[in-house]
């Protein structure tokens, strides 16, 4: 990499990543259940005793996200304290004498969980979180065999079904505060907050307008951290089943990069299991007529977006340019920074590019009536459900409208259904597919061909890295020696680098989580942004940590998934998008060239100013 210098700059402080431990660790001596230990100072009781081989049950606590200290489950007895103390927020002090399971502690834990259960719906069997519910687990852990308290909520609270992506059931909410914390502290969105007092307390949206009517980005991080089924994805599996059983329909599926590193978990495998081949095999068994890959359109995105960047650079277009793959991020900027929308690339996301190409190029090629074609996407993301239903996402319909004399009533979306990883797993289980026993299979052609550059779309920094791989070669017309841009990899909140493109030094930045996005946007709005190109992903870790991924999703799990993503990249024969033969063929046969007229018609979009209220 002779002419390319990549320099990792100091990263900005972020809300999500814990700072590393100091070099010299001060210690203190504590007693746990009568035994004496030396532990690092500054730790909570929970952290300290966890390292000693004890496990204190918790419910509202979620490390890195929330320490509301609200549930009253992790209480322990500390000698000299008037009441029981919450181990999740109480720091150890010298000489602290802690008892983890006295009758007093057990009574409090049990009673508090019973109190939560009293008003919690008892229809576990028909809950999406059945067997993956922390309230269920804690009740089982504490051996709760009956609930002594009556249901005091007389009338059930109404469900919030206003959102295309998410459903909130306040009846199942135990007010742990995790969703509020993640929305506020990680995403900086504050679409939900705690309202009311006493028994009337609930998590709600602004004036109870519903998630669909407030500045919610549909990122689904709330659903990911919810211990119960109080916030879940809006389930579309029934519709997909129906389409699959309809003989008139040609149902094709596309799978996002992050699915292959997440689905295995949902099917009971190790964290971060890489299951590309099994996933393809399973999808075929579900009955999809073609199993395609969103990675194909990720490569396409790089072609379009890369050329858009080059064009903006040469034409004096709006800079920095910001990626547009992440639909949560798009809604975020539409709500909170509408004045900066011109900075966002006009490229549709890979999901949507796939839909438009499938229903035009592919349908035409295969002689399928686009009206009979159903495109299902499997996404790690809840916001994709919203994106698929944006009114502007009807490129294929408009393409065909004149050609086939289509009427308004024939309207169809480019992508018909966007399912999350969790929904797919649910379907596979329903279909009696023994996932771990499946032989690996290959994607179908031509929309199943992809490069390593497309795989890494699934991790934060991946789009940037993929774009740089192509941009470098397109601009410099030179071959890139090493394709690994380490500077933009990893879980830091904001990563920056400097790239030398033929003497032009470009500063780039990569951010994940919307709170970090805000930092970069504030710079832009103040006119202080030093960057040319910015990648923003809504969710912590990028798509692999998306709101549609298996629960739990923790930092540790995100790291495992990222490792698999980069392993898949390394394994791929072709690792630069512009070298994808199917993409080259697509341009040759259909699009002609990046940013062509057809491209604009099918692959580019526009944005809406929304405002906060």
């Amino acid at each position, binding site marked *: 990499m002779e002419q390319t210098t990549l320099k990792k700059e100091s990263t900005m402080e972020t809300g999500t990543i814990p700072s590393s431990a100091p070099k010299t660790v001060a210690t203190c001596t504590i007693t746990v259940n009568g035994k004496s230990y030396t532990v690092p100072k500054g730790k909570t009781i929970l952290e300290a005793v966890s390292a000693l081989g004890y496990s204190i049950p918790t419910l509202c606590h979620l490390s890195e996200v929330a320490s509301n200290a*609200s549930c009253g489950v992790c209480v322990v007895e500390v000698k000299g304290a008037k009441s029981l103390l919450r181990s999740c927020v109480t*720091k150890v002090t010298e000489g602290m004498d802690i008892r983890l399971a006295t009758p007093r502690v057990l*009574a409090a834990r049990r*009673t508090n969980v019973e109190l*939560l259960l009293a008003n919690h719906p008892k229809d576990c069997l028909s809950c999406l979180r059945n067997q993956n519910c922390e309230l269920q687990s804690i009740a089982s852990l504490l051996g709760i065999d009956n609930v002594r*308290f009556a249901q005091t909520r007389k009338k059930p609270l109404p469900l919030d079904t206003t959102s295309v992506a998410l459903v909130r059931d306040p009846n199942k909410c135990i007010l742990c505060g995790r969703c509020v914390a993640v929305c506020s502290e990680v995403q900086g969105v504050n679409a939900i907050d*705690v309202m009311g007092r*006493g*028994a*009337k307390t609930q998590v709600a949206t602004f004036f109870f307008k519903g998630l669909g009517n407030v500045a919610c980005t549909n990122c689904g991080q709330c659903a990911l951290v919810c211990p119960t089924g109080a916030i879940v994805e809006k389930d579309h599996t029934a519709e997909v089943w129906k389409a699959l059983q309809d003989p008139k329909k040609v149902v094709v599926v596309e799978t996002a990069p992050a699915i292959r590193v997440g689905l295995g978990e949902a099917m009971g495998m190790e964290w971060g299991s890489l299951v590309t081949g099994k996933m393809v095999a399973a999808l075929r068994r579900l009955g999809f007529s073609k199993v395609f890959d969103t990675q194909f359109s990720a490569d396409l995105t790089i072609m379009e977006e890369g050329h858009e960047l080059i064009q903006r650079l040469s034409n004096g277009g709006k800079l920095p340019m910001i990626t547009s793959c992440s639909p949560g991020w798009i809604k975020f900027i539409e709500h909170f920074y509408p004045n900066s929308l011109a900075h966002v690339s006009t490229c549709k996301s890979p999901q949507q590019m796939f839909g438009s190409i499938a229903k035009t190029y592919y349908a035409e090629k295969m002689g399928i009536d686009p009206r009979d074609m159903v495109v299902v996407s499997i996404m790690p993301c809840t916001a994709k459900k919203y994106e698929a239903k944006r009114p502007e996402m009807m490129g294929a319909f408009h393409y065909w409208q004149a050609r086939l004399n289509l009427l308004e009533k024939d309207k169809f979306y480019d992508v018909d259904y966007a399912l999350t990883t969790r929904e797919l797993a649910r379907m596979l289980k329903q279909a009696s597919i023994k996932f771990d026993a499946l032989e690996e299979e290959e994607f179908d052609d031509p929309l199943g061909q992809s490069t390593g550059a497309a795989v890494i779309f699934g991790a934060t920094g991946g789009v940037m890295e993929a774009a740089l791989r192509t941009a470098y070669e397109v601009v410099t017309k030179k071959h890139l020696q090493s394709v690994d841009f380490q500077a933009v990899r990893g879980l830091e909140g904001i990563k920056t680098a400097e790239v030398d493109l033929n003497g032009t030094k470009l500063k780039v930045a990569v951010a994940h989580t919307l709170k970090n996005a805000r930092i970069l946007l504030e710079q832009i709005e103040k006119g202080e942004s030093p960057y040319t190109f910015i990648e923003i992903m809504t969710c912590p870790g990028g798509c692999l940590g998306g709101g549609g991924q298996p629960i739990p999703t923790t930092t540790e799990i995100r790291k495992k998934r990222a490792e698999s993503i980069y392993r898949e990249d390394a394994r791929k024969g072709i690792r630069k998008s512009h070298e994808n033969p199917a993409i080259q063929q697509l341009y040759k046969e259909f699009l002609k060239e990046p940013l062509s007229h057809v491209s604009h018609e099918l692959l580019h979009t526009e944005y809406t100013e929304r405002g906060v209220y």
Partner: protein
Amino acid sequence: MSNSTTVQSPLEAVRAEVRKKIRPDMAYIAIGYGTCGIGNGADEILAIIEQAIRTNGSKPVRLKKTGCFGYCSAEPLVNVYIPGKPLLILHKVEKKEAVKILKAVQQGDEGFLRRRALCKIEEWDFLTSNIQFGTGFPGVPRWNEVPFFKGQQKLVLRDAGLIDPTDIEEYLAVGGYSSLEKALFQLTPARIIQEIKDSGLRGRGGAGFPTGKKWELMRQETSPEKYMVCNADEGDPGAYMNRNEIESDPHALIEGMTIAAYAMGAHQGFIYVRAEYPLAVERLKTALEQARKYKVLGPNILDSGFGFDIELVEGAGAFVCGEETALIASAEGKAGRPVPRPPFPAQKGYNGKPTTINNVETLCNVPAIIAKGADWFSSIGTTGSPGTKVFSLVGKVKNTGLVELPLGTPLEQIVYTMGEGAGKKKKIRAVQTGGPSGGCIPATLFNATVDYESLNSLGAIMGSGGMVVLDSDNCMVDTARYFVEFTASESCGKCTPCREGLSQALEILTRITRGEGTEEDLAKLEELAKVIKDSSLCGLGQTSANPILTTLNYFRDEYLTHIHAKRCDAGICESLFLALCENSCPLHMNIPGYLQLLKEGRIEEAFELTLRDNPLPGTVGRICHFHCQMRCRRDTIDEPVHQGEIHRYLADTIYKMGKERDIYAKLLKEKLPRTGKRISIIGGGPAGLTAAFYLVRLGHEVTIYDDHPKAGGIMRYGIPDYRLPKDVLDKEISLLKKLGVKFRMNTRVGKDITLEDIDENSDAVFIAVGAGKDMDLEIPGKDLKGVYPGYELLEKFSLGKMKSFGKNVVIIGGGNVAIDVARTALRLGSKVTVVYRRDRDALPANPQELKGAEEEGVEFLYLSAPKRILGEKGHVTGLEIEKMELGDVDASGRRKPIPTGKKKTLPCDTVVIAVGEKVDSDFLKAYGVKVNKDGTVKADPISLNAGPSHIFAGGDAVTGPATAAEAMGLAKKAAESIDTYLMKEKRFHRLFVKFVYKDEVPFNPESCPQNRPKEIPPAERITNFMEINQGYSGEQARLEAERCLRCDVRAVTMERR
């Protein structure tokens, strides 16, 4: 600054100028103008005097407003000052007196003012200065001689009610801001903190954290930006100390806050005050403006170089915002929800900066401590809790208001001396301290002192100073429910134990108050309360269980009564009674029912209804204390309905017509089948007869054992014929005989037959021995001839064993027996004198009997304590008595008699000692029956079981001397319990039938006093034993029944199941 040796006092010149405002050369009238005064009409009085001053041109009088002197139940308070004279405080001033007061001040009409004055203040220690008002007005008590103020020490309230809170100059005139000057120019911050630490001042918001220590923690923080905050978010129901402190003396708070800020290095601060206190907010605004003008607040205070300013933050009224982390969140514009500590506000508070929050009262103490020193302060109160505390004394006491007293004062002094109790008719049961976070302390523990440790040890807390007195009309279960309802809705909703736990506790408590609770509920409630206390995140949750835990601890029987007997004796839990009269009646007679039946002309049915509830309706209708009238709602219009006189009328009418025969036959017919169970009843008095009536009808074989020749007990042998002709009693006892009750008369258990014998032949035993043994009075000469115990004398007379009592009879005592002896003696031709050690108001006898005795010419000597009985040759010649005077109110709700040393001899030939009766129960001990020290039988309050499973007890045997109706009420309860014990099923309800009558509520009832039955005039009756009360006429009875408001008729809303 601290090295400066010259005392700087930039304000001294101003003070000299304005001192005259406090003690001017002209007369002034100052109206107590707090929220409390205005609520009682102070604004109207002010307007009238203002107008009068404008129109009448005579001697000029200054008119001003002050805060409140604390005596709320005596509002409006008006201060009057005439130069050279003491300051007078007039109370309960009415509009119509306003002009008179003005004129009296103008004309120096001392006579009028003396008569009208509550008290006077000759000199006053404002702590930062001492003011001599003057001398004069003999006969007017000094302020601290008035019961309400006795023992009070006004430290925080030093200026309240005496200076104009809207005028900084008046505050300056009494030495205000001199402590600030001292702090700024003579003391270092460290010295101030040391002084506060040495004083031992603890947080007056309730938790009692040492104030000096709190200040020191913040002093140690190095941040240049620190906040000094005053918590004025007073939210306890029934507590309003802080409101008055601010309304009456806002500058004391500002001065205290500024000194605190200086000591801790804070330059900004705010007062978080409830928006519901508009007057306090207004006065604070004015005070802050004036303080800035006089440079005691602002960027460069008194040119010292130190700057501090205060903002007002109005809280929207959330109880939880009294919790400091929630208060900070609220002030920052967030929802008021607590966050875990640490970090403590002293480290990370408002806007993330070090913050100290003190309560209003804590800060008001500060200037006084700085002025007079830590030693002075710590000499007040106790070692652990120095200083004073202001309480708002409210609820069931005569005097309510703000009391400030040294910590360590016993509760009884507050409730009885200052509050003067609840009067003799009501019994004080408990005090709730600390509002919803506090606990109920029962009257039996009122010797406890009020300080942080002592209250905590009783399960209550000091809290911010609410003190609600509860009496027998307060249901303790409902009290707990009320406070839990409050905290459940004020819970911020964050943590599980508080949010869910309190709503579950409320659910359980509500169920119990509806009679739907179970004993398991109690166990559940108790465990739940402990978990709420143990695992809630903040102070609100941790203390919210106190009302539950203390009532469960001290008043468990009351919970059990709600659960098992489905009764609320206090008459609060509406689901558990028909009407207040029915609930107050020990026999729970369906009073509205028989009144209505009478109104509808259905006399037989009306009588039948009374008879089913009360086997002796004619008897009890004559001798009852009429518990039913004590809570009658008609009393709120004019007088209670005379329900008892009506059932007497019904009985008399039916007996006159002979119609009882049909009803008796009906009862006989519906007797339940023979059970084969044998029940022995010991004692044929009201309790024994009542139990027999119900038990025999339930099919049991019932035998009554009594050592008298005839049944009836005290009704026959204690109550003279002029009150109860014995033919009525005989008639009613005849029903029992008809029903099959066997009477074994002249049989004394323990002598003529052993309890063992009875036991062997019985499936259950009911002990109803009554309280027929006279109490002894240890008095010299009691063994002389001519000295008799009262009850014994009545019994001897009724048995014909004694024909006359002596020429000159003196009776010691004031109970019913004393009066009965007196009136009997009078009828036998004696000259009769009753000596009683308290005053007439305190006399325990039935007021009607007292009135009758007075009319008949019995002489009463009140406040006379017997000292010794004098005699010659072994025979009584006189009684020496000592005159008493009235002291403070004691736990009985009456004023205590205090010896004066003045003695007097009453010549007489007979002395009757009638100082009460007791239960003779020695013979029971051998049979495993538990007996109390006073001779009463220890019985379970619900089942009336007395130890061995088949032995039950009721009546006076259990309660000690009480009324016949009370004895019968317990016997009725015992009968049900015995039947359930014997038959293992609930059958008692089968003895009652439902009468259908109209539910008519009189709309807009006109005032109409109680109908009085005809009585034989005193002159005609004192020579004989004819019944005095002739009873109602038919017309009177109907009119009286119509007075009933029918509060048993309740609107049934759709929501209620």
